[in-house]
């Protein structure tokens, strides 16, 4: 990927901080996804030494894939299709490869984002041009193809995880999710638990169901849950109306230019007999009304690029794609098959107002290429799933955000950048968006940290990423949420945006062991069988021991009060481990509400040697009543003057 390494502070000036040539090349990132396009230059193995001695995996042969497609970069490639085929019938090898080969592009994109090699001269039709690289350029990649054209089935996912654990991956990246279910039922959570037990760091995507509340997936506390933000790059394509007004939009269109001058503009809803004609669904536009015109389509239901294909098929010259309330002002760029620009809801409404009021509405689109330095950035993506955590409200999720909007990375040679069957273009790199794209950023950063600190546990790596994440811009303003245009909250951005250079030296970490997670499961009142199903051995909670969910040593705080008034008190205990020099850390508290009294005991923590542990207790006391669904936020910081160990606090009332 281009630009995001610099956006995350991973430039040439910080390369020396990370021991790329040594221990990072011993780190294996396992990616459960749609497979890999091994010919992508992102998987070139120039300069890499022999595969790590601990590696037990291999490359599996199948349709258009042999073991010779693997090298010292791509060291593992497996596929798991028995569950898929049992439900949907045998794989048609003329449509998809019964092998690790990626026929979709998604898996190649995520794997190259996490740990792709350096590729100079990367771009999509000239957009986002630059030197592409994964976050951990020298880490090894192992792909486990568990997703197929018909979806990803839990029996295959579980086997992929089973194999990845056996192969000895160090980091697992899973940009997929299902519905919300208890941890013992969720295959990703179950598999991730076993991986965590073996010291494997697991990051998963938070989901694209934002901006609705309670829309998260992958919320198990042993998983690092990653939301999505923008970076400081845009692809402007201005919509210029006959009235003289201009509106900002974005596009990745590259092809024949629009005819010179202004072109007639028609609303798709007025060029269709279908009730949802405004959405430009397949076969709904009347060619006689569309031919030779620009068409305004509303976003929603079908794929954005498909709307463009529908307009093109009906004879339209171009498309203005207008966001609706569910997308707000979020501009997602696409490599449309015809000249097109995506505009925000407000611009879309203004263009429609002109369109409906003018007797001869006209328009053209001015494509401006790639623009960098866009501010403010990052902003939380509207689609990024949001808390509170429906399964365990006392665990704040998502954990962190990372770049996930308009991300360029490696692509499959099997299909064009739109993914549409009629798209005959082939590209080495594609630009797409989703928490699928932010997740592998964090996986790669975790690989970097693992290389720098091989002794750190998965929880320590997550803690370092979270406590050093930033939740405000350089001017002190809170990161914005593009869905509202207002400041985001920890339910949107978790601990904030990843800052890997700061994570390298966090000072203190909130560590967790397998036993801590077992105590957590007991606190959830899981039955012995439910816990044994997760741990794979006989286990019983200690009837004499008092378990509390609020004692899980998590690097953030979520406090759920009852709204029916009265005083309620919750105690949260935490333990910090020193991973830096000796020092004395002092407490700093921030809260935006008077309705909760916060006290911390002690307020100073002194560490005299590495790995020393010190505990503290936070007491949250609700004062008075709040209306149901109220939310408020705060922050706990420990600082020795050099390091700041920050934790977000989210209060909710139900």
């Amino acid at each position, binding site marked *: 990927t281009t630009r995001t390494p610099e956006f995350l502070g991973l430039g040439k000036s910080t390369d020396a901080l990370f021991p790329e040539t040594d221990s990072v090349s011993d780190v294996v990132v396992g990616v459960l*996804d*749609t497979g890999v396009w091994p010919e992508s230059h992102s998987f070139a193995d120039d300069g890499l030494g022999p595969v790590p001695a601990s590696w037990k995996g291999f490359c599996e042969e199948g349709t258009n894939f042999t073991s010779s497609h693997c090298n010292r970069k791509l060291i593992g490639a497996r596929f*798991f299709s*028995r*569950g898929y085929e*049992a*439900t949907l019938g045998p794989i048609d090898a003329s449509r998809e490869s019964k092998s690790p080969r990626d026929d*979709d592009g*998604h898996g190649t994109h995520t794997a190259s984002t996490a740990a792709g090699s350096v590729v100079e001269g990367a771009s999509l039709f000239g957009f986002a041009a630059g030197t592409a690289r994964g976050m951990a350029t020298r880490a090894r990649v192992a792909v486990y193809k568990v*997703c197929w054209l018909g*979806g*990803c*089935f*839990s*029996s295959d*996912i*579980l*086997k992929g*995880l*089973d*194999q990845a*654990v*056996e192969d000895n991956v160090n980091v697992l990246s899973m*940009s*997929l*999710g*299902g*519905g919300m*279910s208890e941890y*013992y*039922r*969720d*295959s*990703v959570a*179950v*598999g991730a*638990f*076993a*991986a965590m037990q073996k010291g494997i760091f697991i990051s998963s*995507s*938070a*989901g*694209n169901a934002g901006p609705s509340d309670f829309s998260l997936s992958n919320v198990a506390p042993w998983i690092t849950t990653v939301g999505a933000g923008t970076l400081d790059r845009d692809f402007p394509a201005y919509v210029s109306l006959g009235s003289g007004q201009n509106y900002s939009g974005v596009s990745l269109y590259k092809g024949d230019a629009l005819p010179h001058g202004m072109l007639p503009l028609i609303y798709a809803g007025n060029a269709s007999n279908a009730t949802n004609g405004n959405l430009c669904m397949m076969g709904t536009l009347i060619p006689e009304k569309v031919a030779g015109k620009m068409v305004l389509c509303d976003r929603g239901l079908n794929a954005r690029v498909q709307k463009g294909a529908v307009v093109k098929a009906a004879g339209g010259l171009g498309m203005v794609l207008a966001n609706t309330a569910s997308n707000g002002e979020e501009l997602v760029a696409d490599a449309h098959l015809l000249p097109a620009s995506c505009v925000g809801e407000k611009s879309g409404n203004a263009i429609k107002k002109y369109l409906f009021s003018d007797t001869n509405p006209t328009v053209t689109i001015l494509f401006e290429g790639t623009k960098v330095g866009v501010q403010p950035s990052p902003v939380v993506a509207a689609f990024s799933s949001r808390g509170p955590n429906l399964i365990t409200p006392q665990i704040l999720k998502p954990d962190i955000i990372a770049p996930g909007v308009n991300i360029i990375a490696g692509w499959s040679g099997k299909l064009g950048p739109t993914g549409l069957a009629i798209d005959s273009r082939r590209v080495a790199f594609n630009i797409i968006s*989703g*928490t*699928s794209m932010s*997740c592998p950023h964090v996986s790669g950063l975790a690989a970097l940290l693992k290389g720098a600190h091989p002794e750190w546990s998965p929880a320590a790596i997550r803690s370092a990423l979270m406590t050093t994440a930033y939740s405000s811009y350089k001017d002190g303003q809170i990161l914005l949420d593009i869905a509202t245009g207002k400041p985001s909250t920890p339910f949107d951005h978790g601990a904030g945006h990843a800052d890997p250079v700061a994570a390298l030296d966090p000072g203190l970490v909130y560590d967790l062991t397998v036993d801590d997670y077992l105590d957590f499961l007991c606190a959830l009142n899981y039955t012995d*069988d*439910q816990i*044994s*199903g997760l741990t*794979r*051995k*006989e286990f019983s909670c200690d009837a004499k021991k008092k378990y509390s969910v609020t004692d899980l040593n998590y690097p953030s705080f979520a406090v759920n009060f009852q709204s029916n008034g009265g005083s309620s008190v919750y105690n949260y205990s935490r333990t910090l481990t020193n991973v830096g020099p000796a020092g004395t850390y002092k407490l700093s508290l921030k809260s935006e509400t008077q309705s909760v009294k916060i006290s911390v005991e002690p307020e100073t923590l002194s560490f005299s040697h590495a790995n020393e542990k010190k505990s503290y207790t936070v007491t949250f006391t609700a004062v008075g009543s709040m209306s149901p669904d109220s939310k408020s936020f705060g922050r706990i910081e420990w600082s020795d003057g050099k390091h700041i160990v920050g934790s977000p606090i989210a209060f909710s009332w139900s």
Partner: protein
Amino acid sequence: AQNEKTTYVVRMASHQMPKAFERHAHWYAASLKSVSPSADMLYTYNNVVHGFSTRLTDDEARSLQGQPGVISVWPELKYELH
């Protein structure tokens, strides 16, 4: 519809394996055959769970749930890319 088979992930309590079996795979197979003589295993799982996946009717799944050492018999779930 009663005879329609769907995929289930079966989790077993490995520590409850009867001594008559030398290997977990044999125990899993015997448990499966006891409720569905024609069913085959799709996968056996050794690292992240102890158990297997297979195709069963609803009745067979209910019957398997009652077998000794069976922790859970969950129908397969579909996940999606993000």
